[in-house]
């Protein structure tokens, strides 16, 4: 069975060039980059080369790049690191409701440390309204964290406008670029952000490396203290091979992005055009135009997302879902709920994130296999039976056995 991968938001295949770039640092060049002897030099060199390559991709000065181990770590370093460094100035932080959990979960700890949060909502397409942000900013606001684009619905934020608002109010702006990088061009100078996060995996690089861009002159409280790695902003011996791989991936991305972007746009368009023709009651989520290429987010009514995902996996097609059942936390995606998708419909979520290597044949295979799967699951579904009878599929007598509700 051929296997088709439509889950690039969760992991990407490694570029062969990045793989080659990693090998010397897994074998002969094992030295510690902080060592002054000849074993350390190549490792140090690899890290500084990667820093240049990544800086080149986003049009930033090389010394503004801080290496970390994951986008989650970068998000933590940005929010906690800036909050602790600037707490003398204020204690109010603004984040959007559709941030990644590695931003949203931090609000708990930071609140315990005395910080105050405003979580601003988004419109039904998942966009932050700049007016909402202006209203949320207070004299004691120190940080705004709004992602560049959303990994689950593909919506791109008006980041330049947001940056202007932040600058005018003397507030630092961090943006999580995990979904955006590798899909659309990112120019840090043009965006005007103060801090920016992304992992190597978004560039078809290895797991275990990510960066935080921090505009020169901005203070940061390190989260991992110890040695003077990353100029004291992130202690710990560097993951040299992963960083070298990330650097190479950034270089390739800089050359190839226009090609990837165009390819992904074309494949995405096919899915948007064809899926509603082949399956009734499909709801696309996210912004219709201000969106990432290659992110296709939809709800297929009356079937549950995990059941869809398992059935597609049986056909060799890897996908994701924002339904409660497919999440280990058993909660429906906070992103889908934030854009106003009904809880019951959010259970029918299917998320396809395409990559540069996906082909027309793979898209056609999906378009061929998905409708019978939906048909089979609908034939089992009591919601679909209600729909066919002309009843409201989502209306239930109050108090009908609702286990989650009882437990809460």
């Amino acid at each position: 069975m051929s296997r088709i991968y439509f889950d690039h938001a969760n992991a990407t295949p490694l570029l062969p060039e990045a793989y080659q770039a990693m090998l010397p640092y897994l074998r002969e060049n094992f030295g510690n980059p902080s060592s002054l002897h000849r074993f350390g030099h190549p490792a140090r060199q690899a890290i500084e080369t990667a820093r240049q390559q990544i800086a080149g991709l986003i049009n930033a000065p090389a010394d503004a790049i801080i290496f970390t181990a994951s986008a989650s770590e970068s998000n933590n370093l940005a929010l906690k690191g800036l909050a602790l460094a600037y707490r003398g100035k204020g204690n109010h932080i603004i984040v959007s409701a559709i941030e990644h959990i590695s931003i949203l979960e931090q609000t708990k700890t930071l609140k315990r440390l005395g910080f105050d949060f405003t979580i601003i909502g988004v419109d039904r397409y998942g966009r932050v309204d700049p007016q909402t942000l202006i209203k949320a900013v207070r004299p004691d606001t120190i940080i705004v964290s709004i992602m560049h684009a959303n990994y689950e619905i593909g919506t791109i934020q008006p980041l330049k406008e947001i940056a202007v608002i932040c600058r005018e109010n003397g507030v630092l702006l961090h943006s999580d670029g995990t979904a955006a990088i590798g899909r659309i061009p990112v120019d840090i100078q043009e965006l005007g952000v103060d801090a920016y996060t992304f992992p190597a995996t978004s560039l078809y690089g290895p797991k275990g490396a990510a960066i935080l861009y921090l505009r020169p002159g901005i203070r940061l409280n390190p989260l991992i203290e110890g040695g003077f790695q990353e100029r004291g902003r992130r202690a710990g011996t560097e993951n040299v091979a992963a960083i070298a791989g990330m650097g190479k991936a950034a270089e390739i991305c800089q050359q190839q992005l226009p090609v990837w972007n165009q390819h992904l746009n074309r494949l995405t368009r096919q899915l948007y055009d064809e899926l509603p023709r082949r399956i009734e009651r499909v709801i696309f989520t996210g912004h219709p135009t201000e969106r990432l290429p290659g992110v296709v987010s939809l709800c297929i009514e009356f079937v549950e997302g995990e059941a869809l995902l398992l059935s597609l996996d049986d056909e060799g097609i890897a996908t994701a879902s924002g339904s409660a059942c497919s999440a280990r936390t058993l909660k429906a995606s906070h992103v889908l709920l934030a854009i106003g998708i009904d809880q019951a419909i959010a259970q029918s979520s299917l998320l396809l994130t395409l990559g540069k290597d996906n082909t027309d044949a793979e898209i056609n295979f999906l378009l061929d296999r998905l409708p019978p799967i939906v048909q089979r699951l609908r034939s089992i579904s009591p919601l679909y039976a209600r729909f066919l009878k002309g009843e409201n599929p989502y209306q239930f007598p109050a108090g009908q056995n609702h286990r989650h509700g009882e437990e809460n």
Partner: protein
Amino acid sequence: MYSEKVMEHFRNPRNVGEIENPDGVGEVGNPVCGDMMTFYIKVENGIITDVKFKTFGCGAAIAVSSMVSEMAKGKTIEEALKITNDQVAQELGGLPPNKMHCSNLGADALHAAIQDYLRRQQNKTSGCNCPYCDQPLSDDQTICQPCSAQITRCPECHQPLPRNASVCPNCGKKIKPK
């Protein structure tokens, strides 16, 4: 993450569908929490002769429904009421811990259908008798077979009304004289 048996039942669920004129229907769950099951049963002489279900839910929910339907078929009402959610999970070779609560509703749905059956039985025998000859009436009878009386019913509670009643003796609704 699922056992092979769960996946097998998910791929080929047994007894999917609805029963026309079922003797009992039970529905548990709600699409808001992600899983919803509707069970239909047919009962003859206290034995469940047919079970059908429809389920909206994840792989576990569909497999659980299928397993329960197999376990219940041919059992007496009493035996079927003893089937527990845990037994169903065991028969499936176990379920992931986080699925034990939310998707493992199959026995509950079956029991709801049995309760519905028992309720209907009670209505048939004691709740609904001919007001003239006192013989039991079924829900949809318009003429009492033993005494051939025409049966009028309360528009509110649907109980048979005595002749010329101005108030329903069951629910107290005022009845307009014909």
